[in-house]
């Protein structure tokens, strides 16, 4: 601690330069924070996927339906303990920009399949008792200021017509990353009103008794429906979510690429700045050595300066990113899980310190190798 004033006083030597260098870190770490949020938003479905749940789709495509009759056949397969199904609705509420996922669900089994979504019994009973009832996530309710009892008109796109729903319940997630932007309504209401594809569902979700048995069950299920008009493609819920993300392209690679370029540039810029700072202080560093400070001390001093700048800049950038995410999803529903977790903040901070260390190491080495006699002779 007795050396702290040496580090800090050097940082205040050129305030503008220090501020700009810290600012570079702040901008880079702000970007890192936002990229981490976007990555988290895309990966959220994968992260929260149940390990004991499988998703059964039409082998041809996700938009091709499966017969309702498969429900009982799936339920009879040994190792399957629960079956539910749902259908993508794809309606528009007021404006096309107001996107949110709408699912027509099996009212009898959906709630049991997803215990991570919590809703009171009274609200669920109200939903079951209303053919036009709907249950919405709390984030969605908050977004459109909906409350229980509100009537919500939705214009069908896949299933044409004007659909109206009564909000009968609001669910919340057990975990912070659970998606609470969904809109559920009864599949029997959809099936009754739709003009095509009656008795068809979008996909099935099944719960299996033993997650270790998933590979075998995937095979058993798909073999059972092989050579039928609607062959199935079964996957774990995690793999299903991951394949969904993949359809958007390799988001993680994109994020990694952007991040790498930004941090490499930061490394060069900061390294150059520190090299200039060391060169300007050649004589002072030589004096420190002359009075008895060791090479290792000079090395540590320069590195400490860089790390402090990186740490301050990084903390500011990550703090701004956190503030930005507190305002919620800025995309109008495309990234429902818009959240910067503590682990990403810690990773970002560690990254800033590592970049600071790497940027400082060459100038610090040159400072530590400085020969006092040569340095004092210069200038």
């Amino acid at each position: 601690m007795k050396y702290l004033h040496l580090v800090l006083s050097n940082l205040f030597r050129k305030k503008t330069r220090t501020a700009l260098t810290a600012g570079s870190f702040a901008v880079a770490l702000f970007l890192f924070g936002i990229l981490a949020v976007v990555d988290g938003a895309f990966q959220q479905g994968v992260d929260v996927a149940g390990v004991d749940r499988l998703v059964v789709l039409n082998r041809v495509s996700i938009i091709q339906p499966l017969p309702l009759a498969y429900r009982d056949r799936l339920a009879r397969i040994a190792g399957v303990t629960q079956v539910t199904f749902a259908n993508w609705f794809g309606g528009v509420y007021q404006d096309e920009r107001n996107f949110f996922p709408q699912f027509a669900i099996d009212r009898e089994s959906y709630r049991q399949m997803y215990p991570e979504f919590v809703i009171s019994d009274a609200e669920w009973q109200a939903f079951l008792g209303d053919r036009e009832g709907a249950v919405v996530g709390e984030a969605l309710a908050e977004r459109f200021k909906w409350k229980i009892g509100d009537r919500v008109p939705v214009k069908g796109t896949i299933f044409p017509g004007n659909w109206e729903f009564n909000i009968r319940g609001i669910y919340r997630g057990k975990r912070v990353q659970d998606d609470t932007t969904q809109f559920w309504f009864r599949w029997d209401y959809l099936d009754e009103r739709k003009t095509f594809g009656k008795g068809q569902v979008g996909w099935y979700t099944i719960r299996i008794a033993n997650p270790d048995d998933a590979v075998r069950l995937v095979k058993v299920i798909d073999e059972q429906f092989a050579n039928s008009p609607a062959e199935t493609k079964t996957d774990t819920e995690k793999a299903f979510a991951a394949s969904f993300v993949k359809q958007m392209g390799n988001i993680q690679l994109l994020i990694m690429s952007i991040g790498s370029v930004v941090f490499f540039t930061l490394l060069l810029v900061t390294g150059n700045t520190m090299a200039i700072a060391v060169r300007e202080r050649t004589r002072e560093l030589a004096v420190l050595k002359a009075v008895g400070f060791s090479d290792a001390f000079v090395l540590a001093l320069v590195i400490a300066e860089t790390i402090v700048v990186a740490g301050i800049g990084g903390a500011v950038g990550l703090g701004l990113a956190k503030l930005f995410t507190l305002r919620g999803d800025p995309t109008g529903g495309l990234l429902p899980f818009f959240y910067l977790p503590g682990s990403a903040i810690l990773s970002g901070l560690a990254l800033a310190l590592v970049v600071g260390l790497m940027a400082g190491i060459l100038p610090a080495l040159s400072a530590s190798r400085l020969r006092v006699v040569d340095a004092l002779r210069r200038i």
Partner: protein
Amino acid sequence: MVRIDGRGDGNSLIRARGLGKTYRRGGEEIHVLQGLNLDVDAGDFVAFMGPSGSGKTTLLNLLGGLDVPSVGSVTVAGDEITRMSARKLTTWRARHVGFVFQMYNLIPVLTAFQNVELPLLLTNLAKADRRRHVETALAVVGLGDRMHHYPRQLSGGQEQRVGIARAIVADPTFLLCDEPTGDLDRKSADEVLELVDRLVREHGKTVLMVTHDPLAAERARVVLHLEKGVLVDTVTAGRAR
């Protein structure tokens, strides 16, 4: 007692034997110092004079352990510093040598107090003890009321006095002054020289000083002349004359 004939009695504080320094520039060898002998007793005040390039600063660097000789040895208070590793030499410098530079070489972002405190950071002294030492050193150089000023808020003479306070604060075995008045006006130079003189007379410090200034050299007890890397004569000067 100062001798340059290599016949010191072995009780000298500083003893150099056969000291030589050769630089290689391109294919050419430049002999900056050649076969130099020197004995300086504790409490001596020695000035080195000579034309530019005669090897004065190089000699000071060798005696202060900032540089290593090509040949010969330097022994200070019984320790042969020319056999020390670089690391050990750094530790030795902190304990035994106080440097005063022509350009003062204060750290501009530190106050006078913090500049003077620098050598004490290398010791195990507690903060309160360091403060006491620094205040004493600044009082000795007459800047007790300027300790919280930054170098830019001080005159050249005051800066040099802070530099001297930094040199003496850890109570080193001897002081090396490289043109300490070279960047000062006459009045400030006289004040600084008076201070150095007082350190020798009142505090018993041993001082080796390089200077071009005959008036500065007058203050020393012995003036040694260097020419082409060789000590050519000894003149008893100044107050001792």
